[in-house]
């Protein structure tokens, strides 16, 4: 189910990026924390693409 997989990914990213970006609990998420959360998601997806692409290249070079 696509909707459930989407929700699951959002839960996983919120968990990971919360630990990376939120240190203390204040009255609102500040600008720096918001930028960190957005960048955290985007860089994680970049890293994921980078890994898959590099694995494929390694396979091509081996065959």
């Amino acid at each position, binding site marked *: 189910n696509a909707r459930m997989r989407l929700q699951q990914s*959002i839960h996983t990213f*919120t968990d990971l990026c919360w630990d990376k970006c939120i240190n203390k609990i*204040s009255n609102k998420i500040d600008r720096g924390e918001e930028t960190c959360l*957005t960048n955290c998601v985007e860089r994680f*997806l970049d890293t994921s693409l980078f890994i898959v692409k590099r694995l494929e290249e390694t396979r091509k070079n081996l065959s």
Partner: protein
Amino acid sequence: AQELINKINEKCFSKCITKPGNKLESSEQTCVAKCMDRYMEAWNIVSRAYISRVQ
């Protein structure tokens, strides 16, 4: 929403109740309430970032 509640529970318990006492102190309740609001804000920010990337 069960998954969200579980995550909030896990994250906010570990942030707000560092030394569990005889009851949930009012200062701990305030911390959990704030932490919960921040977690849901973070969830929204992460959703937006993720959805705008996968679209």
